[in-house]
């Protein structure tokens, strides 16, 4: 066997401070007495990386006030001036992308090849893309005098910390809003690094504020009376609470929530490429992807062939040290998430689905879960209905295109879907009937700043990315 020697990326390229304050009004500040501190750990080793501050109500007040003070002058800048700052941020993110990629992999557990080759290039691309819109808002199709909303409260998840930050901050700033962003409590480091990027770009104080903390900090932020707009990406459960708290206020709201995407393989699909797409659909980022293709629907006539090829391919996935450049699957982000994945997988086995993982040795320290597929799954299984948010694939079958569409749509969610077939007319016909925000054809999990992204039903509302992404930040 051709064994690859370890090829670890050096963690010395990035400095991690022992403790971090909050980024408010252009400065790192200590939290007020109402706050506290929490630790962020490397999920691959359980090593404590840094102590991070919990923002309490007073801190959130200060951050929102700073954003409010900055909002007037920032929105009054000509679009081309705001664009300059965004371009500058984009370039700094590119220049410092190696540091950021290592930091992201350390804090999140994702493989360096994904943070380096996917997350960071896309994050920079979002800033570049929205920088381009900043002076063209009147031509975006939202009236001839689109106005910013004011202060945006943004709460982002732990699966793509830097990329979600870019998705949120870039369009908000381009449209003349100021922001208070709360990163997830398990992955705050790249957002705090980004605070330094803002200083390096000489962004006016208060335009971007970063408050760290857990759910309570997020709740304080979205419920704050001084906020004009709430943007949330995360679980459907929290999304529901936010929708309730925002209901009846003048605040605008966009939600990007969970998903249980169907990935449909027709019998005329390019099998080898479909298998790659299935793998990319569910094992990319350890399956911590809201649009992951977690329900595989295979046409019965090619079922055996696809499953055999999929298992063969899964056996080549390399699970382990996220900083090794050859690692395909890294660590599960937290002990809590690992427990959830285990619980749901055990339920799958108990309900009679057949569980399979390739032989693979998992590290003793840290949070790990082997790539897993369940065959013999039906619509009645919980693993076919609930979002697992981990490297676990449920495989179902179908006989006709109509049945595939029916099963694909039979879910409370509707974020994404995939179609695999060599027949162009089939792609168009099926895509038209799938109730999902994104439908990929002969590919999966591909993102681009020019392409809007968002959901149907319990996957949330509003669109991020593309021209449509501007709308959520304009009056």
């Amino acid at each position, binding site marked *: *066997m*051709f*064994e*690859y*020697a*370890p*090829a670890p990326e050096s963690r010395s390229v990035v400095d991690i401070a022992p403790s971090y304050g909050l980024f408010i009004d252009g400065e790192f500040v200590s939290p007020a007495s109402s706050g506290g501190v929490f630790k962020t750990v490397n999920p691959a080793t359980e090593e404590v990386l840094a102590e991070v501050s919990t923002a309490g109500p007073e801190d959130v007040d200060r951050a929102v006030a700073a954003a409010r003070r900055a909002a007037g002058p920032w929105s009054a800048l000509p679009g081309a001036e705001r664009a300059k700052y965004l371009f500058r941020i984009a370039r700094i993110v590119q220049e410092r992308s190696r540091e950021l990629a290592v930091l992201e992999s350390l804090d999140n557990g994702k493989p360096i*090849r994904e943070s380096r*080759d996917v997350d960071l290039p896309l994050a920079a691309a979002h800033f570049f893309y929205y920088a381009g819109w900043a002076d063209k808002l009147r031509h975006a199709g939202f009236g001839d005098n689109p106005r910013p909303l004011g202060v945006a409260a943004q709460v982002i998840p732990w699966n793509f910390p830097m990329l979600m930050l870019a998705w949120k901050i870039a369009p908000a700033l381009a449209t003349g809003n100021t922001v208070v962003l709360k990163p997830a409590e398990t992955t705050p480091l790249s957002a705090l690094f980004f605070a330094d990027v803002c200083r390096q770009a000489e962004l006016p104080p208060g335009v971007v504020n970063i408050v760290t903390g857990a759910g309570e900090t997020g709740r304080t932020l979205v419920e704050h009376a001084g906020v004009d707009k709430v943007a949330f990406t995360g679980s459907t459960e929290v999304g529901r609470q936010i929708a309730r708290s925002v209901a009846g206020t003048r605040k605008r709201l966009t939600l990007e929530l969970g998903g249980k995407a169907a990935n449909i393989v027709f019998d*005329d*699909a*390019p*099998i*080898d*490429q479909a298998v*790659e*797409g299935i793998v990319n659909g569910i094992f990319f980022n350890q399956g911590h992807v809201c649009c992951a293709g977690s329900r595989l629907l295979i046409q019965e006539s090619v079922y055996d062939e696809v499953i055999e090829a999929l298992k063969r391919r899964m056996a*080549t996935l390399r699970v382990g040290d996220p900083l090794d*450049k*050859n690692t395909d699957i890294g660590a599960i982000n937290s002990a809590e998430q690992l427990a959830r994945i285990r619980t749901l997988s055990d339920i799958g086995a108990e309900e009679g689905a057949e569980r399979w993982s390739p032989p693979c040795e998992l590290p003793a320290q840290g949070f790990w879960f082997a790539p897993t597929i369940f065959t013999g799954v039906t619509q009645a299984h919980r693993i076919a209905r609930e979002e697992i948010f981990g490297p676990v694939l449920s495989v179902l079958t179908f006989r006709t295109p109509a049945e595939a569409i029916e099963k694909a749509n039979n879910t409370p969610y509707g974020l994404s879907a995939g179609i695999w077939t*060599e027949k162009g007319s089939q792609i168009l016909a099926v895509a038209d009937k799938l109730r999902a925000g994104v439908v990929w054809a*002969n*590919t999966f999990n591909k993102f681009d700043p020019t392409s809007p992204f968002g959901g149907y039903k319990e996957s949330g509302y509003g669109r991020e990315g593309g021209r449509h992404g501007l709308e959520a930040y304009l009056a």
Partner: protein
Amino acid sequence: MTATTTSRLSDLSDSSFSLRSFLHGLPGVDKVGVEARAAALGTRSVKTSAKAAAIDLAIRMVDLTTLEGADTPGKVRALSAKAVRPDPADPGCPGVAAVCVYPAMVPVAAEVLRGTGVHLASVATAFPSGQAPLDVKLADTRDAVAGGADEIDMVISRGAFLAGRYDHVFDEIVAVKEACGSAHLKVILETGELGTYDNVRRASWLAMLAGADFIKTSTGKVPVAATLPVTLVMLEAVRDFRARTGRQVGVKPAGGIRTTKDAIKYLVMINETVGDDWLDPDWFRFGASSLLNDLLMQRTKIATGHYAGPDYFTLD
């Protein structure tokens, strides 16, 4: 794999209709997908001990090739000597898999290679165009085998393939295979002229059904030679073919592979798509002329910690 499957597959050649139906019924190849997969495999980081092992394996897989109109016996003798002993400074350096020459040069190379374990390959069958009558191709093949070649690299008639005359291509391969006797037959698809990955997969299956021992990408005489995605499609074809028939067929990318870095990408691709069984000179070859010296240079770098200039390695 069953005997019935094998005989059913061989029945395919009975009519051009069934052969065509079979080849066009193979799963399609998505261009974007296969190119993305090949590019992703190319990003593996192969360092230190893994790199050293890969370099030695790659050297053992080289078909050291000279296919110039200007080839002389002197040139072929020099190349053959180098094939046996690639690095005179290091007796631990393995020899290459084979020397590949035009049929006229076979007796010259045979003299040097006899008893060394290095195979002797010859490009017969009106290489590189394949545009000659079948009897000329067969005579070419028999000459090369009689002269001492134990591997024959034949070209398919791309014209006939592209015109959809699959049975014609099939019959030619069968006839050449027969003329090879005990020599191994490598069938050159000239993928740069086939236009699509679907055609590459069909041509691979066609060659294997007709009895090819190896399928090879290119002659090295057209602008587009071996590429990673094309080789990936061919590897998938030999893997699927073995799963259906039980017969293993080798793969040989040729043309344009010049650096150690490139060669390692191919080894990674084998490792992660068809696996161990093909990581062997019996089942995978590099058709190359300049690759060897780069492999030797990198090999010395690993051993000594510094790069030696080109003059520290032999010309061929």
